[in-house]
């Protein structure tokens, strides 16, 4: 009985002591000692932890590098595919913009019927200014049909095969278009050149023309429909000794960036050669 009491007392004392120490510790009375102790524990744990992680990395790292490399390759290929998609989509967007402009143009000019064509090539000779389009006689294209963009006149069909056609641009040195100046209602002839510049010839001396005057097709000769915009006068050369004035014209169409054009399919050029008087022998 006495032993039992002494053991209970010992246990009680131990609990009280431990409880008291804990209470004192929670009360902050052992902060220095507890900090030193916990610091020692943390340092020890950190030492073991870093060694363990290092050993784990040593064994696990090669597998991770391989998987990372594979993942990197996958992501790189995905990036490349997305870049290609971005390029394709931006190209399509640009094409859609061009087509939308051409559709607007054809809606604004419902009297004509059009066939849209891609520009697929240029003349191999640098002396000539021709383009090759991917529409031919199978699409109803005939020689002499005018070719335009939403901005203005491009040229006319010069040769046709089944699925392609060659178009002579108005900038070609052999091209001559009868035009009129909108402001003064004066008629003249527009010629191309080897450098692609447009010049206005056969303007009467007694007519006043100004820079900025709009140049339109006159329809004379039956080669082109009337009132297709061509460009603006940018420079005038008038000399008293000359029979006619000359002027330079800035085309409204950017011929270096032609990608899609419209062929006016319901226009038939008039052949006036039989009406031209031949010299009497």
């Amino acid at each position, binding site marked *: 009985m006495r032993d039992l009491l002494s053991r209970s007392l010992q246990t009680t004392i131990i609990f009280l002591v431990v409880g008291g120490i804990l209470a004192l510790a929670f009360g902050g009375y052992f902060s220095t000692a507890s900090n030193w102790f916990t610091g020692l524990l943390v340092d020890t744990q950190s030492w073991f932890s870093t060694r363990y992680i290092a050993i784990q990395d040593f064994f696990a790292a090669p597998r991770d590098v391989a998987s990372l490399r594979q993942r990197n390759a996958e992501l790189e290929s995905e990036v490349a595919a997305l870049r290609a998609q971005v390029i394709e989509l931006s190209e399509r967007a640009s094409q859609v913009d061009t087509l939308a402009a051409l559709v607007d143009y054809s809606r604004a000019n419902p009297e004509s019927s059009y066939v849209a064509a891609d520009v*697929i*090539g240029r003349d*191999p*000779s*640098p*002396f000539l200014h021709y383009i090759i389009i991917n529409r031919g006689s199978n699409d109803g294209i005939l020689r002499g049909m005018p070719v335009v963009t939403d901005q203005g006149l491009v040229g006319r069909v*010069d*040769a046709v095969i089944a699925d392609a056609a060659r178009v002579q641009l108005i900038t*070609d040195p*052999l091209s001559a278009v009868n035009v009129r100046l909108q402001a003064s209602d004066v008629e003249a002839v527009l010629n191309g050149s080897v450098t692609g510049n447009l010049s206005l010839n056969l303007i009467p001396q007694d007519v006043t023309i100004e820079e900025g005057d709009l140049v339109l097709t006159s329809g004379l000769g039956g080669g082109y429909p009337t009132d297709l915009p061509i460009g603006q006068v940018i420079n005038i050369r008038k000399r008293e000794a000359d029979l006619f004035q000359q002027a330079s014209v800035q085309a409204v169409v950017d011929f270096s960036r032609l990608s899609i054009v419209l062929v006016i399919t319901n226009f038939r050029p008039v052949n006036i050669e039989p009406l031209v008087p031949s010299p009497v022998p």
Partner: protein
Amino acid sequence: MRHLVAFPILALAVILQSAIVSRISLLSGYADLVLIIVIAWALQERVETAWHWAVLAGSMYAFVTGLPWAIPLAGFLVAVLIARGLQKRIWQAPLIAMFTVTFLASLFSHLLSYTVINIIGASMPFGDAFSLVTLPSILLNLLLAIPIFWLMRDLAQWVAPVEEED
């Protein structure tokens, strides 16, 4: 049978010329890929089909261009004539021959085109045509000459391989 390779190669050259090379201009001139190929082929030893290539190239070129068909044909035939003449004289320096023929043939081809276009009806100042079209085109042709010459040399070795002597 290997000689028929001229058809796909010249067809591809005309397509590339029309679709790509003609869009890469220096001033108003650009290179003539088909002419360079014909010259490079004519300068290869053991090649016996240079005249065939010239006629074929001229026909294909005439199909695309707005020039009268005889102009490119004459240009290619004269190019082969110059190449064959020079090959026998400076056969030890094929690159010099390539440059010389490229220069002379380009010049002849442009003068011929210029003359014919003026006869047809265009009035082009000679100075403008020479400085803005011919000189830049010759420069681009000379730049293309070396790579095309090596390509055609490899092709010539495939078409007409050297027979090993025992």
